């Protein structure tokens, strides 16, 4: 299938990185960037392809994280099974929030605000409810065995998050090449026209929301295994809602590689800011805001859009070059 080769090559190249003996700091940087890439890819399914901009994807990140942590801590469930259950719970949360918002016809900024409200309500609930550890948060018991989804070294973690990101890339590529994907993009472009062409708009949005939420929940579940700690601010806080939308917007909304590219850029910027100014609170958000304004003003289609334009210019310059192959979606 078209595009799959590129995804596998990129994944293989990234998988080889630890073989060159990179430092733990670098590896840690890459793992956190890939967590954002995964969450960003989840957001991209609904926001990039479906045009439904959520400001509250923390709702799914947090649900994936908490369900996994709680099942392990309070019910002694195996970590891998808890991780899978967290993904399922995230998908369910997506179905509930999506069902409520889309059925009542919320669109545009109303949808964005309602998703933000859901995430905030969950954050407040989690910060007062005993089962989520209330204000203290939850510490997952140290148990450094692969069966417990915990490892001595960061390398296996890196490979696992890379595998998850790769799966998300393949899922999005498959969506691009499917009827569901065509309907989703049609809904983004013009809901009335989509309806006239037999598209069940609510069902398509809901489907996208569930897939989107499940992917973001996987990022949350992985976060818990990696850091062995979660609290309300991390799980349901605005930081993850923002980074999950920032990565695809900077990298290129509605493209396969946009979220991965954007996540790397966002994290590099975040680290650079820390180096220059120390760890001043809120500074990263200010920088993100500035970058967002710049991207929207100068390159509304993100890095992927800039790359596509450059490529088109190069193709045009060669007189013997054939016209570009028709593509199903706009992917990098």
């Amino acid at each position, binding site marked *: 299938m078209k595009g799959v080769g590129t995804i596998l090559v990129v994944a293989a190249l990234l998988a080889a990185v630890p073989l060159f003996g990179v430092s733990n700091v670098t590896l840690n940087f890459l793992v956190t960037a890939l967590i954002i890439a995964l969450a960003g890819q989840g957001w991209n399914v609904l926001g990039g392809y479906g045009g439904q901009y959520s400001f509250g994807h923390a709702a799914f990140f947090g649900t994936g994280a908490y369900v996994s942590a709680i099942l392990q801590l309070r019910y002694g469930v195996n970590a891998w099974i808890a991780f899978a259950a967290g993904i399922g719970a995230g998908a369910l949360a997506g179905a509930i929030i999506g069902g409520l918002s889309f059925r009542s016809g919320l669109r545009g900024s109303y949808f964005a605000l309602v998703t933000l409200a859901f995430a905030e309500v969950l954050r407040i609930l989690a910060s007062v409810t005993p089962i989520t550890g209330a204000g203290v948060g939850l510490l997952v018991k140290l148990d450094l065995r692969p069966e417990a989804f915990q490892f001595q070294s960061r390398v296996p973690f890196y490979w696992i998050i890379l595998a998850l990101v790769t799966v998300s890339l393949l899922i999005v590529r498959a969506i691009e090449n499917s*009827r569901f994907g*065509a309907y989703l993009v049609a809904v983004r472009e013009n809901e*009335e*026209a989509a*309806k*006239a*062409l037999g598209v069940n708009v609510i069902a398509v949005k809901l489907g996208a929301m569930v897939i989107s939420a499940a992917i973001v929940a996987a990022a949350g579940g992985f976060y818990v295994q990696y850091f062995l700690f979660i609290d309300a601010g991390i799980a349901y806080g605005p930081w993850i809602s923002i980074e999950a939308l920032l990565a695809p917007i900077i990298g290129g909304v509605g493209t396969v590689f946009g979220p991965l590219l954007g996540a790397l850029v966002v994290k590099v910027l975040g680290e650079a800011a820390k180096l220059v100014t120390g760890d001043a609170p809120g500074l990263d958000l200010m920088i993100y805001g500035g970058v967002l304004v710049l991207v929207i003003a100068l390159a509304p289609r993100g890095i992927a859009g800039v790359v596509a334009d450059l490529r088109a210019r190069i193709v045009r310059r060669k007189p013997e070059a054939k016209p570009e192959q*028709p593509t199903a979606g706009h992917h990098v």
Partner: protein
Amino acid sequence: MSDPVMLRVETISKRFGGLLAVDGASFDAQAGRITALIGPNGAGKTTLFSIISGFQPPTSGRVLFEGENIVGVPPHRLAQRGIARTFQIVQPFAGLTVRENIAVGAHLSQPRRADALAAADEIAARVGLADQLDKPAAGLTVAGRKRLELARALALKPRLLLLDEVLAGLNPSEVRDMVPVIRGLVDQGITVIMIEHIMHAVMNLAQHVLVLSEGRIIAGGTPSEIAGNPHVVEAYLGRGAAQRMLQAGAAYG
């Protein structure tokens, strides 16, 4: 009039606040023909199409499609059941190419992406868009957008096709190109209801003409009956219209 009735509109009314946009309109559209719906601006023609295609609920009345009441059925279901519409104000998927636009419609019967794209190519050729397939819909001319509306609707393989002023905004030579395309639809087994202001096209295409005025059907008949009804024509299409229609009818035979 022995053809079976494909669509029966029964005393449909539609109220927008204080405005009665459609006022107890009733008519039948026979299968396998082109029925034209004409009438002055604001008569309620587009509103009737919106009701038939499920985009708006009527305030009262019934719409029978092949004998079944379809009021309350959502638009995507009606599209699946064989009713396609075009929009008077064109509604392209602006960021997609012409091919991708048409493929959305083709997906109704083609689950696989490659098949839907191939079907799109074939339909584009039928409506004269074959050389624009890779163009973004946003870059099309008015005529191109009207063709795209028609192509997307055709991609659904409809049994009933509602065309809302697909000739409006086209120059005379573009109209001449489109007329045979529309006439060809009937040969493919599609029943057509068309809203149209361009009279010579109506005279040339329709077997049956309905006149809507202030939400009411005030006349119905063959094009020559309508054209020969000076009362209808003068009252609702303006002075001199009767003469113009007769001339147009004679010119096209």
